[in-house]
């Protein structure tokens, strides 16, 4: 009964830095650590746009030392107050460090205007580094990735097992008798679990549609194509799917369509490649 599948959520963010963080990261690329000074004399490292009291920062800059005092260190990480700074900078501990130790900034071999231009802190003095020239930093790329093992859950699992056998099966609410497809955990009108299964034909009618012309990341079909709400015969709620097998200009409300199934059995609604016009 249990159906599970790996799911990867990833995206390559392009982060705008704004002028303050951009200047801090530009200095890192040049092999220096800069801080911003507030009116009360506090020097914030790393540079921040606002002090905790709301004061806007970024007018008054100071270059701080590339060494300082360890405020705390544990499990390969350290917060270090660089000489000339008031606040602590969090980064990797490259050598064993403890509170009160002196630590030095060690630079990465390649620097691009990013917080990892610093390799970390070490008790050992660091070699001087060359300035890496370039435009002021205004943006950087930051990939993110999360991996999951997702369980379909009982309701969706049942539906997907039917899909494996070329069948679309809906659920009828025992209170209001509405038939839902794809499956839901509960009837949104009556707030009761949907227990009764109802076999449905793989044919229905387009109730509304939208033609997609714009390419986007992760897109599976080549634009233009039509996304449509398709009301299967016997169902009360439309199913969102693709209309294919015809020119997008032919797609219209009330159009009769029928599922085109993939030969390859797979427990996914994607097994219906698209709905095509019934000619």
């Amino acid at each position, binding site marked *: 009964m249990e159906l599970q599948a790996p799911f990867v959520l990833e995206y390559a963010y392009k982060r705008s830095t704004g002028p303050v963080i951009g200047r801090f990261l530009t200095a890192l690329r040049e092999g220096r650590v800069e801080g911003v000074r507030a009116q009360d004399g506090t020097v914030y490292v790393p540079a921040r746009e606002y002090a905790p009291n709301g004061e806007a920062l970024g007018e008054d800059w100071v270059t701080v030392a590339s060494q300082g005092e360890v405020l705390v260190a*544990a499990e390969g990480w350290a917060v270090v107050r660089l000489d000339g700074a008031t606040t602590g900078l969090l980064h990797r501990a490259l050598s064993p460090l403890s509170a009160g130790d002196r630590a030095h900034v060690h630079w990465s071999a390649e620097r691009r205007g990013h917080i990892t231009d610093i390799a970390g802190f070490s008790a050992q003095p660091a070699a001087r580094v060359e300035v890496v020239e370039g435009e002021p930093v205004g943006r950087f790329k930051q990939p993110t990735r999360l991996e999951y*093992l997702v369980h379909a859950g009982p309701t969706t699992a049942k539906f997907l097992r039917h899909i494996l056998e070329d069948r679309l099966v809906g659920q009828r609410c025992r209170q209001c008798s509405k038939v839902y497809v794809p499956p839901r955990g509960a009837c949104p009108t009556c707030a009761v679990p949907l227990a009764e299964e109802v076999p449905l034909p793989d044919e229905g009618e387009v109730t509304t549609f939208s033609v997609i012309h714009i390419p986007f990341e992760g897109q599976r079909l080549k634009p233009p194509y039509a996304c449509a709400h398709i009301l299967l015969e016997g169902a009360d709620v439309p199913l969102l799917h693709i209309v294919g097998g015809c020119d997008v200009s032919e797609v219209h409300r009330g159009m009769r369509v029928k599922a085109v199934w993939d030969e390859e059995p797979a427990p996914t609604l994607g097994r219906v490649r698209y709905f095509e016009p019934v000619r």
Partner: protein
Amino acid sequence: MRPVYIAGTAELPEVELDKRDEAELVNAVTALALADAGLGRDDVGFTCSGSSDYHLGRPFSFVMALDGVGPWEPIRESHVEMDGAFALYEAYVRLQHGDVDVALVYSFGKSSVGDQDAIGTLQLDPYYQMPLGIGPAQMAALQRQALLDAEAFPELTTGRAKGRDGAASAVLTTRPMGPRIAHFKHITDAHDIGLRGLTRCASIRRAADGMGPVEAAFLHTPFHYQGPFLARELGLARVTASENDVPMVTGLSNINKAARSGVRALGHCTSGPCLQQNLLCVVEP
């Protein structure tokens, strides 16, 4: 302020969780809480939930889950990407408007489908911290070490509460049914741990201001060192720390425990690196 009472509470036994979809979870746990309160779905004037798609690995899971409370015809509803304790706070504030007398709160979460620490990393400052790859466990290790360095405690246990799946629900009402909410505050510290001293928790101290004495305290402590630390910050001799941690649920569950305790009791929820945010809810019979 209108007095607000916790009329009903519920949690779902963990064994059932793997067998249910989000909407079924929500349907079951809210039905239990409403039954506990002796109220029906038609009595509910506002619904508020706490959950995180990142913890569940399902885009729009919070929208799908809403089916479980019957959102058609349309209902007054809100959602926070936080623990249900914060949803409870929103519901409490919503009841102050005066036009609604009963609010339903629920939250659900699973720690088993993804890497909770990797999700914690993505919640950090995206410029200076997230790219380093540091996670909540390493942040916690830094705070624990800072407390030991300051000789604030002779020793502090390493380790953390066990990750679990779960769901919780509570029913709030302005009618005198069940224990009354006597104190409800949440306060946040600066996100960057380099900006705040780690040996004090200023946010929980401020949240506790005016809280009064309690006979029981259910604290949300994802890491074991946090139990004695927060007990000291709150000036409490005896507290109940978290053995298990259910993402988005433990805080609400703590408030439910306080409500069921039969004494003047505290329920706590934390969020963010090194106890950045702290919510305190005191209930009295």
